[in-house]
């Protein structure tokens, strides 16, 4: 990853906030409040069906077994994980009041408020993994208990309408599913108001995919192939789909694996897969004690056990590296910290501009605030924010419009050629000519727009192509 460069978007917004604060009165507090949003890391919500493996994934990402999958209460409420010391937790109830949560050895054991009164659990822990993003774990969708789904909807949908203090607005989403997401899950996801650029699909339990560890096809490779198919199918919902083995990732990232485990695993190396499975199912004595066998299963799962045995001879460190490598967690983290965070930043900037607008409605100094917001909006550094906002609007208004393709290309492309949909090494002349052509086409289209969203988007696109045509 590149060295931390000052974010030009944040710079512009910060200047605007200072300008607002300079108007004095209550606006100083308001500017500070909005500033908190600006300077805290983007919030990434993890959405999926119950038992899709959300908490396991959170643990793997945090590098600590914090989201206890076994403790029921923790998975039944929304939990927000943020970098911070000391390690502590608070419950925010439905009225917005905060309650300290007693912790026993770093674990939440009991909630001070009844689960149905909890808005969310706020958890701080010192972790480099979440320094530049905040994770929000949700209870899970389409579950047996109506209560759980209400909790997820409250935070994600009603949260926008609720008082600002209690809302848990998210800037990006990680959407977890095994095999193929159901239609109702995709529909729910679309309601959440993210664009495909800041939504990441995760195919969980990749180590048990298809026929599983005993099948004819390696489940991880099978899952990878299936993830590519799904990414195409869900192109209008997610940026891409990444296969993950949550369990293998969790174990390797939380440092749970010991040399003794590696040795025990290797001791099982000579059994054939079916024999190994039979031994694992039984309480019979074997090369490894039954309770150690159980521990190994809990740590690395069926796939890890069957396929990690030979490698275990080389010790826990090698085995751990293999687990990291096979789990897919590195690829997930890479996307999480680059493109997802980048587009989450755009959504957050958009949210902040929305806050300016809201202030303009409620505050007497509305003319000045409006002027400040307008200046920020038209600043060239905020062009990506404008493109992103228009993409969002167009997806709502007319998801089949070809303009969406233009907006996506302009946002995702990292070079002028890529932004125009040209091959990476296209000559400068071609880039310029294409930009001109597209600019003219956009001008022509602007004569006959169908919706207000299209109107706005064309203005932004024309500005972007004008830049590129220079």
């Amino acid at each position, binding site marked *: 990853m590149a060295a931390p460069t000052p974010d030009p978007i944040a710079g512009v917004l910060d200047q605007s906030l200072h300008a607002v604060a300079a108007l004095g009165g209550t606006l100083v507090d308001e500017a500070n409040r909005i500033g908190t949003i600006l300077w805290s890391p983007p919030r990434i919500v993890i959405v999926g069906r119950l038992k899709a493996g959300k908490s396991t994934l959170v643990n793997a990402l945090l590098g600590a077994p914090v989201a206890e999958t076994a403790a029921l209460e923790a998975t039944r409420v929304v939990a927000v994980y943020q970098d911070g010391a000391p390690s502590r937790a608070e419950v925010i109830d439905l009225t917005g009041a905060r309650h300290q949560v007693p912790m026993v050895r770093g674990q939440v054991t009991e909630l001070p408020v009844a689960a149905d009164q909890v808005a969310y659990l706020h958890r701080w822990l010192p972790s480099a993994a979440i320094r530049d993003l905040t994770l929000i774990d949700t209870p899970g969708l389409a579950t047996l208990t109506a209560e759980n789904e209400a909790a997820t909807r409250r935070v994600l949908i009603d949260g926008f309408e609720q008082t600002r203090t209690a809302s848990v607005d998210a800037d990006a989403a990680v959407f977890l599913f095994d095999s193929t997401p159901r239609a109702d899950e995709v529909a729910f996801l679309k309601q959440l108001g993210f664009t495909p650029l800041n939504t990441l699909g995760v195919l969980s339990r990749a180590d048990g995919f*298809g026929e599983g560890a*005993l099948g004819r096809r390696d489940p991880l490779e099978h899952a990878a192939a*299936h993830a590519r*198919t799904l990414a195409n199918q869900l192109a209008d919902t997610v940026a891409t789909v990444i296969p993950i083995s949550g369990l293998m990732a969790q174990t390797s990232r939380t440092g749970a694996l010991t040399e003794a485990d590696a040795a025990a695993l290797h001791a099982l190396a000579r059994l054939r897969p079916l024999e190994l499975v039979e031994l*694992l*199912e039984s309480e019979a004595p074997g090369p490894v004690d039954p309770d150690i066998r159980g521990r190994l*299963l*809990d740590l690395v799962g069926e796939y890890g056990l069957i396929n990690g045995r030979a490698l275990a001879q080389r010790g826990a460190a090698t085995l751990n590296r293999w687990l990291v490598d096979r789990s897919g967690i590195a690829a997930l983290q890479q996307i999480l910290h680059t493109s997802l965070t980048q587009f989450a930043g755009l959504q957050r900037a958009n949210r902040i501009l929305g806050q300016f607008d809201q202030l303009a409605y409620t505050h007497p100094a509305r003319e000045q605030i409006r002027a400040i917001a307008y200046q920020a909006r038209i600043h060239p550094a905020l062009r990506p924010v404008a493109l992103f906002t228009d993409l969002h609007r167009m997806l709502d208004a007319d998801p089949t419009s070809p303009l969406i393709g233009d907006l996506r290309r302009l946002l995702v492309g990292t070079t002028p050629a890529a932004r125009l949909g040209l091959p990476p090494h296209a000559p400068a002349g071609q880039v310029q000519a294409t930009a001109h052509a597209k600019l003219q086409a956009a001008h022509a289209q602007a004569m006959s727009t169908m919706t207000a969203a299209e109107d706005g988007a064309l203005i932004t696109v024309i500005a972007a192509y004008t830049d590129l045509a220079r």
Partner: protein
Amino acid sequence: MGGSVSPRDAPVPPAAAFVTSAGAVLRAYKHDGVADLAEQKLAPDRQVRSVVVVGEVKRGKSSLVNALVGQRDLVPVGVDVTSTISVSVTPQTPEFPAGRAHLLFPDRTREVDVGEIADWATVDGHHVRDPQIDSLPTRAIIPIAGSAMGKVTVVDTPGVGGLDPSLSHLVVASAQQACVVVIVCDASSTLTAPEMAFVKEAGASVDALIVAVTKTDKNIRRWKTIVNENKRLLREHLQREVTVLGVSSVRAVIAAGMAPGPAREHAEAMSGITALRTEIHARLAVAEQLPGLDAVRTTLEGLRSVQAQVAGEIAVIEGRGTSVPDLTAELERLRDLKAHSLEWEQYLARDLSMIRGKAVTDLERRLDDIRDSWTTRINKNGMEVLRRSPQKFTADMHSDLQLAMAGALAGFLQLLHDDIVAPRFSSEVIWSQVCDQILSELSDRRIETHQVGSKRQGLFDPSMLTMGVMGSSMIGGIIGLSTVIGVGAVVGTVWVGVNVGFRAMRSGKTNLLTWLRETIGTTKVATTRLLDQAMAQARPEIVLRYRESLRTSIAELQQQITTTKDTADADAAARTKTLTRLSNNAAIIDKKITEANALLADLTAARPASAAAPATPAGGL
């Protein structure tokens, strides 16, 4: 796998042995009709035995079906594969050899390669996705050789639409059909609310229901806990024990691919598939006794009539029997009946038209129920849901209509038996002959109604309704009819093909509702016509049998009068000799009757016990 399917097949079942030995007695007294009927009832293929695999989407139903029959790539499975229709895996027959599959379309059947089934019967199937196609199969049948389930048909139900509560009514045990339902659950979590509701729905038949927890190989650490937890949940909610078994379909098919021998048997046993097969066979074994029971009862009836006949003869010889004048008076009465048979026939006609009226009313009620429930369903779910899987809804509607028609015909036959034949004829043989005759006649018939909704050409398919009676050879492929098969449907069942318009599904709601109304109307007309055919067939059958029985009764009486006169003239020695012969015969018959009663007691007593415990000791010999 050898021919031995269940431990029961090895020794000759006591019922069969009895029916054969008592049959000889019946035949000696010229009661061949009864003896034949009893043997027919024992015939192994007469009872259709099946196991239906049900469950929610993506639970591994199709994989379990493959594991049960022991053939890895038979029914299409895969992460992207969701079945849209029921697929029956049946043992091959000369008519339906292994290697080819049969697709049942509304108006025809089509033979395809087994490999092509996925194109026709899965959500992303090549033909299923084709918007141009007008008609898709509603069922598929795959005959196979060497099924690990023996002669039991294994039915895979569609994954589309989730767990269908109506399937719980399939669990049934009768002399005609035995069906076990296996509900497939996941080893990663306990029973879901719909699964629990399904088991509850099965009600009293829950004994023939097995819960299979699949994917144990992916949940080695948890599955045993889940199995026990499921047992506990079922006990809590139902206050009964339900069998819950863990199975790994992958391990089972890997094992099936191994060379025969102890290693394979061990691997199969460890996968859990052997225990599941054993449980299924044990449940079916309960019903296996029912045909025997039926056959023994028929034989007993025949024996009783022979007993009465012999007793009469003895009485005559002993000189304390009915006097010649009495017999002559009875003869006169019968001759009188014969003379007035026209009157009898008129009463018959009256009774027949009465039961026709009852049957038609019943049919109308059934069809109105279907119309109401589908109207509600269409209004409630909306077109989106229907359009997403038209094949599944077509098959559902198809089976609803089929059930209504089969139900109406079975009800008609039941009435024919109860109100017409039983009061007029004492013998069960007559009924079976009349019924066979009607059904065999109907099975050659085919009623076709063209052009449902022809007024709206372009919007509607020129739909066609076809129906008839299907021979028993295909019954194995049909599920859902078991609940309506009554006393009548012994050799076949009603088959109906409704070309449920896919185009109607695609067009708007109003059109679909109109189409539904018209289809129901046409079904009404067509079924009524079918009933009229059955009536037309039944009437001369019954009249002829009546005349025939009068004729034989008169001949018998005349014979008896002659014997009585002869005996009076015979000498004492000859009389003693005849008496001894008759007494010996009477003793043999009495012994057979005692044997039959003991056997019946034994077989009926074994039933409740075997329902609870899978390994029933074979009924006492």
